């Protein structure tokens, strides 16, 4: 069982994902790119969750990254690929600055503060007509790679692999132990000598950078930003739902959740054009009720039972 799940299955998935554009048309690639965006957001949210902090700032950092990337392209003429990376870094730096002040908060107070910050970013951008296009937004003269489907897809895939890698790193490294301890009991963590604040700051900064990166990918591949679409609340709740449905605290969870919900939502809208969102909401409710540990959580429980049975 272990060889199957740990090595063969991931290898097949990786191979399929890289060769995807060779057997899938532009429509499927388009869906894949959307799934990857949400996947990166779900993964980044999940990483911070491991420290016990719930963030609602996803949309805010996503929007900052999107705008940063577009502004760097428009105002400074920096090549698109670079703007995505620099946009992510700018977002991370901004997050670090905010984090110094707000990371002392816990639980829902932290969550509401991150939400409020995201909204503040959006309103500021909205009120800057000359610098940031104000209510109308900004457009790029061309999209990245001039719209070449293959390159754009592989760029997105690279973003996905990077995010999965980061998540895996946080799973396996000494970070993992530190973060889990912080989440379980901060007093114990302190006693063990773990500098909670430093860890939280590092994780918060990196995950915000991931969200900014996703924003840059989005804005460069579609070629525009607007306050409403770049800071949309969908970028908060949908990734969280995906991470939960997939299974939180694992790396596979957000990946699975993003793919499952992304594919299902597309399918539903093809067959239930007027009203598919009702069914989508129902699916979320039902899965949460019956699979509280998410899909991955349930599967690993099942496999464990099978393993125990086999012993």
């Amino acid at each position, binding site marked *: 069982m272990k060889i199957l799940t740990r090595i063969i299955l991931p290898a097949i998935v990786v191979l399929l994902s890289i060769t995807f554009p060779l057997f899938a048309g532009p429509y499927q690639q388009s869906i894949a790119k959307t799934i990857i965006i949400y996947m990166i957001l779900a993964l980044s949210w999940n990483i911070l969750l491991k420290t016990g902090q719930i963030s609602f700032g996803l949309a805010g950092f996503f929007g900052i990254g999107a705008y940063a990337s577009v502004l760097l392209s428009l105002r400074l003429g920096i090549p698109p690929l670079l703007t995505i990376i620099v946009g992510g870094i700018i977002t991370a730096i901004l997050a670090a600055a905010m984090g110094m002040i707000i990371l002392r908060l816990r639980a829902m107070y932290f969550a509401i*503060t991150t939400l409020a910050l995201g909204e503040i970013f959006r309103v500021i951008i909205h009120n800057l007509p000359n610098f940031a296009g104000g209510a109308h937004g900004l457009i790029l003269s061309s999209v990245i790679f001039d719209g070449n489907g293959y390159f754009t897809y592989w760029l997105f895939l690279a973003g996905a692999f990077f995010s999965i890698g980061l998540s895996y790193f946080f799973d396996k490294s000494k970070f993992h132990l530190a973060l889990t301890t912080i989440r379980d009991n901060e007093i114990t963590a302190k006693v063990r000598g773990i500098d909670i604040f430093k860890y939280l700051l590092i994780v918060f900064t990196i995950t915000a950078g991931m969200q900014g990166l996703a924003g840059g990918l989005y804005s460069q591949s579609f070629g525009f930003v607007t306050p409403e679409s770049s800071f949309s609340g969908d970028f908060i709740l949908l990734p969280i739902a995906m991470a939960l449905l997939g299974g939180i605290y694992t790396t596979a969870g957000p990946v699975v959740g993003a793919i499952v919900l992304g594919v299902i939502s597309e399918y539903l809208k093809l067959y239930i054009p007027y009203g598919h969102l009702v069914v989508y909401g129902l699916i979320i409710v039902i899965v949460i009720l019956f699979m509280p540990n998410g899909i991955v959580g349930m599967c690993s429980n099942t496999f464990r039972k099978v393993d125990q049975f086999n012993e």
Partner: protein
Amino acid sequence: MTKAKRLILLGGIIIFALLIILWRPTILIYGIQRAGLYAAIALPMALVLGIVHIVNLAHGELLMIGAYLTYFVCSTFGMDPLVAMLPVSAVMFLLGMVVYKVTIKHTLKAPELNQLILTFGLAMVFGQSVNLIATSQPRTLSVDYVSTSLTFGKLTFGVYDFIFPVAALIILGGLLFFLRKTRVGKAAQAVGQNPKGAEIVGIDVDKIYLIIFSLSTALVGIMGSLYLTKQSIFPLVGGPYTMKSFALVAMAGIGNLPGVLFASLILGVAETFLLSFKGYGGWSNIVFFAFIIIVILIRSHRGKQI
């Protein structure tokens, strides 16, 4: 806060209020009316959050359902919305019971996040179902008395909107009485503070949760009826109020019901203050969220730091 500090704060507030009344009284009038609306909608969420400890992301959608039910009753039977509030609140109470028993009850043992996403799913189901049935075209109920106004010299202002702060005060008063003086209410407070302890003492925690959730749903349904009198309704009208209520409850502190009123007042007046300056309306959106961050940060500073 020490008594001296309290007196100084009170004095400052009174002076501030007097200044405003002399300079631009509409700020205080509209600020209070606005605050009333926010508070009346946020109080039911504070109730649920304080006792059942779940964040109900479908809160705004329940407001919307209350409004649509009222619209349906009024346009079919020709009732006045303030009268229709009674049957609507009964229906909403039942709806709350059903929602609790079918969905929320089963996630209470699971991590907090599950409840969050569950209510998110419910919000989607409610909002999109109403959208399917009623379409996204706004509905309005034209009622005469909502535009009643008073004139003092050069100043004309609407008075109907005072119904919202009145409603907020009634709801707050009613809830405080319920929680402190009735048997069920006191049991609910115990459950809110220590569910395990309450269970040991013999309180039926599940029943308390059921009552509280249904009560909250009924209250927010009533607010839906009131909302219909002043605004056009459409399926997604509730969404922004969920976030606003959540923010206000966080600002007041969980379990602090009167605090919700104060928080709403500060925010309502601050927003109206900014709006009174032509051209700065766009920034009034930031006021809301900036205030919340500031208050939360100040409170955390004073509290114990880990």
